């Protein structure tokens, strides 16, 4: 059982922790590459410090020790995100401890379920064989001879068992791709049904046949055949309940990411809430662009600036009307004539222009770099054994000419954390091997791709929690809302029923299409 694609593997916490240390190393490496790397790290740090315009004495981190105006300090640092040093270590500790306590319990539950199912399956499979063999072993001499009919029944039992085996292997023997919080109701019901069924068969067999030592062997074999038939029908029931019922789309769900509002719609059939959550998460990794915390800092700093610099003074004497104070602050901040909308507009226009310029430089640099490489045909390979390189060496040879432009572009679009030099070189050699054009090589960097495209350390989303008001094993209904939480953001899922469509028909005779010419002529008399 591989844990490679599990969303909640035991090792996820550790790899995430090491991911953060790698980030520090990567920044160090970037520093060697170009002298401008300090801009990136400094821009992240400056989020946590906001100097309100009225208090110029509050400066950078170093002057935090200065007293006097410290009472405003708390308001200005409300914009702490995961980028400051302190909060990373705290979150990490929380994550690791959560992983440790959850992993033990979940694995036990998963293994227990699997062993029970396996034991039951084996028992069920061996039961018809036991039914047929036991009389032969125990009272062989008393049995009536059976002849052709029994042989035919033996063959049919053998083939039906084979079909049952293949069907069960196809349906049930699959690597579990996820760990759900509650037991899967239909599967549990089916296991209980099978158990009761086989138990009742054994009961009848024990009482009517073993105790009374029935000599009608044909009857015994037919009893075993009826058991196998009934098992095949239960298998059919399992297919219908577990696989077919949810295929027909009945609900449309809207999934919205809480941090940036990116939304998608999916069609689902009759599923329980936990299975619907599973489908949504599987599609999340493919459809949603990767979560980039660096893109969110701008709006938080704007909001902090808006509320900063306002302080409430209680002139009428003591009385701690906290809600009144905060409401007064909000009203005052709203009425304040600040030009933050202007700032936003010009900032965004400026940013767009910068991104476009850098993009143009990048595209030109990459196109030029690709012209230096030429693929050698098979015949040419023998003729010129001099300067031949494999794709990796070719990539390393042309990388320096485009490295700077690529670095600058990634930094402007705040993607530099997602692409290490090693990954860029790998992608470049991959593109060279597959005869891709410069545009195909750049597609990965110009558009923000889905989460699956990136390294697992950068995902920010491996452990999910389902928050729901209804029981997670109950089915989907119209209007249900549930939330999938991970540490950094939430996915809010809204379920809507597909409307009942009333379609009526209308028949138009093709001969009934007739037309007239409508004129308005003018005649002079």
């Amino acid at each position, binding site marked *: 059982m591989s844990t490679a694609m599990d969303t909640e593997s035991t090792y996820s916490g550790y790899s995430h922790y090491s991911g953060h240390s790698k980030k520090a190393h990567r920044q160090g490496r970037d520093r060697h590459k170009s002298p401008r790397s300090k801009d990136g790290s400094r821009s992240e740090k400056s989020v946590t410090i906001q100097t309100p315009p009225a208090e110029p004495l509050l400066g950078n981190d170093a002057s935090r020790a200065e007293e006097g105006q410290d009472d405003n300090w708390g308001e200005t640092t409300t914009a702490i995100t995961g980028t400051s040093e302190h909060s990373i270590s705290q979150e990490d500790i929380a994550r690791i401890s959560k992983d440790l306590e959850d992993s033990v319990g979940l694995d036990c539950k998963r293994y227990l379920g699997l062993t029970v199912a396996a034991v039951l399956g084996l028992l069920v499979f061996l039961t018809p064989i036991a039914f047929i063999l036991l009389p032969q072993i125990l009272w062989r001499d008393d049995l009536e001879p059976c002849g052709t009919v029994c042989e035919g029944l033996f063959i049919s039992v053998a083939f039906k068992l084979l079909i049952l085996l293949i069907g069960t292997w196809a349906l049930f023997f699959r690597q579990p791709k996820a760990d759900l919080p509650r037991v899967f109701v239909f599967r549990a019901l089916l296991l209980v049904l099978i158990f009761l069924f086989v138990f009742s068969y054994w009961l009848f067999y024990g009482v009517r046949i073993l105790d009374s030592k029935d000599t009608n062997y044909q009857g015994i074999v037919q009893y075993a055949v009826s058991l196998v038939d009934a098992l095949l029908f239960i298998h059919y029931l399992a297919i219908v309940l577990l696989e077919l019922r949810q295929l027909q789309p009945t609900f449309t769900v809207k999934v919205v990411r809480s941090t940036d509002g990116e939304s998608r719609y999916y069609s689902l059939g009759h599923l329980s809430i936990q299975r619907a959550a599973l489908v949504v998460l599987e599609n999340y990794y493919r459809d949603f662009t990767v979560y980039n915390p660096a893109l969110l800092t701008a709006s938080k700093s704007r909001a902090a600036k808006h509320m900063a610099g306002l302080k409430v003074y209680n002139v009428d004497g003591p009385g701690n009307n906290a809600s009144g104070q905060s409401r007064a602050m909000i009203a005052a901040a709203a009425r304040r004539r600040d030009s933050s909308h202007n700032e936003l507009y010009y900032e965004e226009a400026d940013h767009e222009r910068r991104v476009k310029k850098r993009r143009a430089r990048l595209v030109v640099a990459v196109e030029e770099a690709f012209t230096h490489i030429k693929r050698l045909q098979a015949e040419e390979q023998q003729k010129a054994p001099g300067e031949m390189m494999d794709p990796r060496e070719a990539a390393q040879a042309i990388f320096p000419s485009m490295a700077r432009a690529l670095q600058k572009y990634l930094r402007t679009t705040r993607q530099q954390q997602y692409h290490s030099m090693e990954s860029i070189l790998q992608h470049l050699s991959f593109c060279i091997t597959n005869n891709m054009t410069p545009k195909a090589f750049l597609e990965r960097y110009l558009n923000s791709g889905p989460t699956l495209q990136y390294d697992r350390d950068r995902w920010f989303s491996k452990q999910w929690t389902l928050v729901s008001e209804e029981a997670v094993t109950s089915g989907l209904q119209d209007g249900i809302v549930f939330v999938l939480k991970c540490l950094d953001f939430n996915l809010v899922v809204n379920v809507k029923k597909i409307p009942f469509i009333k379609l009526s028909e209308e028949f138009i005779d093709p001969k009934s299409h007739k037309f007239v010419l*409508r*004129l*308005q*002529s*003018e*005649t*002079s*008399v």
Partner: protein
Amino acid sequence: PVITILSYFISSFQQRIEIHKLRQGDNLILGFSIGGGIDQDPTQNPFSEDKTDKGIYVTRVTEGGPAEVAGLQIGDKIMQVNGWDMTMVTHDQARKRLTKRNEEVVRLLVTRQSLQKAVQQSMMS
């Protein structure tokens, strides 16, 4: 007395116009253009108030022509020509009735929206 009252009402909505045809070479011309007819599209008529009216309307009046001299105006609806009804005729029939070679004078009965409105206003006041 009833007939005179009725004729009074009829003449107050309508106007009688007598046009003397002008001889131009081999033809007798009246100096205006008509549009409309039961075989035409009434919705394209810019002069009618009711867009389902398939009557014959005056669409153009040439300057200085016999029609203008006689007092015919653009937008008039022709109800009768020399006693012949023009409210339910085709475009071609209307043209033929107006351009009879042996007639030198045509007497038209026309109705005008401005006339109608003036009479209605005077009746209301």
